């Protein structure tokens, strides 16, 4: 292996006139062969003999590239449609494998080296059902009523999505800041982190649903055709949660106290969301106010369609102690679905907007 390179270089910093000649002698090793490919002779006077093989790395004007959309610059604000296409196709779809792996990681890590194992997934929903049962027992006792199986079944079916929501928010808030080493070191669309946290919670929710089905079969809850509404409600709940997860994770990256605000809101959120009780217990006006919370119609919808076998396209009017109460209207569902879609779009777009600053601010 013999090689003799004698570069006679006269170059300037700003890359203007560069005279760069290198002569390589045979025999060539693979390395010198590679170096030969770059033998570059650029003379300031144009009557040079040697052909230019490749442009030097510092050439100011690059070869003409028609498509240069892959270059990133400071002004990236494009149309919402363009951004959505980028997010959904270039980022989420392209990185679906990563989302799957991260979700699997979150699930695996949660059940490794744990005492409870998969029972852990059931812990929060079961506690919610127990607490709800106690509250409802007290209410029934004061009201001089009997606490029925439907009441408990209604709480149980609302406990699963509520614990999914609480868990997702909690894990999503920490998802970016807790993995700052990834955010500052490797490029991938950062949306996958809060979304994977949400998906991992969805897995727990699935376990909850399975155990719920077993419990309902044991207790003897009958399902009607109205139970077909469940997929619609589940999708809405997932979109709403995912959208909010994106928002809180992004907000917590820029402002660290978002985490504490979210914690407090989630702690008391159960009192402002119909999990333990039904909105009609608050009277005509109270029920409407209760339904402003976009999660409320979704939870109520689940209870009505599964436990009460009520078709969600029909309004439901209940005779309360103080008069007639509108317990359900199809508009509630439309409202929730709109909220879910708006939350998801806003979450994706705002997250995408902030994404380029994550590595600097985290």
């Amino acid at each position, binding site marked *: 292996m013999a090689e*003799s390179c004698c570069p006679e270089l006269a*170059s300037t910093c700003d890359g203007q006139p560069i005279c760069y000649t290198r002569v390589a002698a045979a025999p060539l090793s693979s390395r010198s062969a590679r170096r030969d490919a770059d033998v570059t002779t650029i003379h300031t006077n144009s009557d040079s003999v040697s052909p230019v093989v490749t*442009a030097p*790395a510092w050439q100011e004007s690059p070869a003409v590239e028609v498509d240069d959309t892959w*270059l990133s*610059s400071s002004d990236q604000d494009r149309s919402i449609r363009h951004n959505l296409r980028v997010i959904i196709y270039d980022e989420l779809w392209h990185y679906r494998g990563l989302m799957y*792996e991260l979700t699997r*990681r979150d699930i695996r890590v949660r059940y490794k080296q744990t005492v409870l194992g998969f029972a852990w997934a059931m812990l929060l929903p079961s506690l919610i059902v127990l607490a709800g049962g106690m509250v409802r027992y007290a209410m029934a006792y004061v009201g001089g009523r009997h606490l029925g199986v439907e009441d408990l079944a209604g709480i149980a079916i609302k406990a699963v999505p509520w614990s999914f929501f609480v868990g997702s928010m909690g894990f999503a808030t920490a998802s970016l800041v807790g993995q700052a080493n990834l955010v500052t070191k490797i*490029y991938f669309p950062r949306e996958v982190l809060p979304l994977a946290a949400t998906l991992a919670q969805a897995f727990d929710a699935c376990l909850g649903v399975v155990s719920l089905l077993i419990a309902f079969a044991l207790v003897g809850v009958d399902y009607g055709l109205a139970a077909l509404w469940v997929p619609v409600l589940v999708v809405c709940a997932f979109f709403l949660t995912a959208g909010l997860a994106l928002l809180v994770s992004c907000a917590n990256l820029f402002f660290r106290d978002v985490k504490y605000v979210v914690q407090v809101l989630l702690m008391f959120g159960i009192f402002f969301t119909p999990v333990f009780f039904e909105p009609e217990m608050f009277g005509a006006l109270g029920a409407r106010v209760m339904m402003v919370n976009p999660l409320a119609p979704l939870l109520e919808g689940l209870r009505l369609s599964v436990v009460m076998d009520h078709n969600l396209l029909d309004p439901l009017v209940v005779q309360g102690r103080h008069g007639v109460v509108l317990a359900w209207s199809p508009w509630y569902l439309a409202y929730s679905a709109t909220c879910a879609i708006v939350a998801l779009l806003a979450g994706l777009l705002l997250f995408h907007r902030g994404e380029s600053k994550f590595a600097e601010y985290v």
Partner: protein
Amino acid sequence: MTGLIEFQHVWKKFRRGEFHNSLRDMVPALASKLLGRQRHDTVEPREFWAVQDVSFSVRPGQALGIIGPNGAGKSTILKLLTRILRPTKGRCGIRGRVGTLIEIAAGFHQDLTGAENIFLQGCIMGMTRKEITARFDDIIAFSELAEFINTPVKRYSSGMNARLGFAIAAHMSPDVLIVDEVLAVGDWRFQRKAFDRIGEMVRGGLPVVIVSHQLDRIASLCTHCLLLDRGRVVKRGHPDECISEYVANAIEVQDPSAAGLPFRVSAVEIEPKGPLRSGDWLTVRLRGEVLASAGPDTRLGVRVRSLQTAQVVFGLDLTAREPGLLEPGSFDATVELQLNTGRGYFSIETPIWNIRERRELGQGPQAVTSVDVAAFNGGTNLHARVRVEMRPAPEDRELWSA
């Protein structure tokens, strides 16, 4: 897709000090954002330019090495390239799939096993699950961790961690390769293996960007080089040139009279300038002055330091050869060295020391040469022939010293 790397007049601004990042600070932040559009071309008192007007493009078959002192902006450039950061001004990017040998173990989760982490880290780096499955056995074989692959990564030593990370990264088939200081992975044997693997990928004809402080690695892998300092391009050209310039400027040449040095070496020139073969003679010409503070204890020398190991491989005391160097006056010294060394980069330094106090007082300028082919050309040691010409100092200087 043919990979391309493009960096067009990129500027990047950072802020010094702490940010305020609680909700309380959101209102003023939003207000200032609404009131005035943030200016891209000026720096506020607390801001600084980490990268200033850097341009380059790397085509297939080219390997660009980026060198420079700490804080020169090398890692920032890599983060801008890989889209982790976005430029304040200018445009940059990579076309094609990016293979990064940066932070090769960053995605590992400590509680997961090696096998599980291969999938996780692979996906984070941008491989598909199908590709990882296909290369799974190769990755394990390369990492030499077959017996520990089902052990959680938290039980791994740091070397095992790095080996696994490197093995994953080395099994991507990227369109563009970016390497940052990962060449020191695992033990000596694995380092060689890793280095060979990088060399293989580089020679595969991808556009490559390498950032490293190991200059010999840059020299042996790169076709082009960029020398940065405080965010600016100081020099661009052939790696040998940039490395020489970098090393020559790395040591601050002190003002001899201010530092109390007895010698002022004004220039060190070497001939020939290009790479040498082992056993070739190198001519080193020193020009300078002996100042009045030179005494019987002061020494001026020439020494050869390997840049790979930072070890001195040869030292020569010029004062011992030429006692005239203790008398004030200017001198021209020619030292011919036969470099019977292996392949590598060597700096030719001009140390000044005091033998009675046994300490080095300082250094004059230096030059860098490279020995390119390790073919041993004869000779048993570094040989030197020294010739020093003295010219007496002008009269006034003698008066001055008296």
